[in-house]
């Protein structure tokens, strides 16, 4: 391992409302948020603070041992990361659905998704910080099960980041899903030369492009949704 780092559990995640709205399926300029939904969103954003415990771990390795993996052929080094927001939020979501509070549950779940992505973004920033110091170029982060990396890539990440389960509390199911569910695993390629992006655009390279409810819109990035952040 060339370098490794952690995301401290005390780190507060800046959850973007616009991102939460995107997970809920709202589209910028197309949907008006009702007062009641806006109120629940505000309340659940507040409630979520106590339900989120971010943990993350990343490691940067030499890419040479991975040369048989087509995805990493042009990389000199590869960073792998695993992060989560813990399981308290998803347990609360389950309870809300059991109590018939589906709207609250749905909104809190979307907040959890946005928070998990934010945790991944923070870990990503740590990796970028290291790469800048090393004067290395980087790709966007890419994850198993998305775009062009089959979900089996989880074995590679968890096989190489052997400390990830202990440091983050994230475990893999036999079907390669992560528990807690609000977790993100990813890789970033690093190198001095040109690096091919695995997922060329955040949405365009996906098989669901054009019919995905969560798609970031052309010319109207999800970050601008709601315009309140």
């Amino acid at each position, binding site marked *: 391992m060339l370098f490794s780092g952690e995301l401290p559990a005390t780190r507060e995640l800046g959850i973007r409302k616009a991102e939460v709205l995107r997970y809920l399926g*709202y589209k910028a300029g*197309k949907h008006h948020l009702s007062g009641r939904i806006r109120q629940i969103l505000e309340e659940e954003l507040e409630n979520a603070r106590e339900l989120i415990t971010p943990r993350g771990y990343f490691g940067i390795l030499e890419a040479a041992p991975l040369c048989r993996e087509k995805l990493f052929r042009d990389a000199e080094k590869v960073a792998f990361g695993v992060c989560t927001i813990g399981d308290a939020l998803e347990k609360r979501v389950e309870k809300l*659905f059991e109590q*018939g*509070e*589906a709207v609250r549950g*749905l909104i809190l779940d979307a907040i959890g998704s946005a928070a998990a992505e934010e945790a991944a973004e923070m870990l990503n920033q740590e990796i970028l910080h290291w790469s800048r110091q090393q004067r290395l170029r980087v790709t966007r982060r890419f994850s198993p099960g998305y775009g062009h990396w*089959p979900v089996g890539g989880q074995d590679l990440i968890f096989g190489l980041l052997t400390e990830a389960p202990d440091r983050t509390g994230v475990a893999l199911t036999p079907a390669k899903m992560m528990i807690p*569910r609000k977790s993100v695993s990813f890789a970033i390629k690093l190198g001095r030369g040109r690096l091919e992006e695995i997922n060329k655009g955040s949405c365009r390279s996906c098989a*669901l492009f054009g019919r995905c409810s969560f798609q970031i819109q052309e010319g109207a990035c999800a970050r601008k949704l709601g315009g309140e952040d």
Partner: protein
Amino acid sequence: MFQKLSRAVETGDLQNIKSLILQAVKNDLPALEILNRGLLPGIEKVGEKFGRDELFIPEVMLCARVLQEGIDVLRPHLQNNSTSAFKGRLVLGTVAGDIHDIGKNLVKMMFIANGFEVFDLGINVAPEKFAAAIEEYHPHFVGLSALLTTTMPQMAATIKYLDARGLRNNKCLIMVGGAPVTAEFAGSIGADLYADNAIEAVEQAKKAVRG
């Protein structure tokens, strides 16, 4: 009164739905009429607005919650009617290997709110468990949910398993859905119905019930 009830559902008026229904019952309006001419037209309008992109899922769920509350208040009175209020039975679950349940839970809520009886088998449901539930509950519909492309093949495996045991017939239609699932995929694995979202799922089921 029926218009008021319909409007309460349509606008997600949780505060007033209970008193409106109790008022309607006090006025000797038949419970089934309250349901069929008051509450259900309200949720129909919500579905139409959703179809026109005037409402989105959270708002629809809010209205469904009002409908649910209304049905709960009405239920003791409906039981006095000889006609069953249930439109049909649904067995629902997320397929084996998949642990996601938000979409499934939304489908469940929309079906309950629209007068269906729902048996939720939960997540990571093996084909054997679906089969056992069909034998136990004799549902009109079996809903299979999957969030990931990697678990979609389990939908095919489940349908194959049910077919091999002769558990699917004209009385039990299989509906599939989930973020990566398409109508083409549904057709290719022999599913009877496909829905893009929870609201459409209810519409599909209602159409099938009406024949």
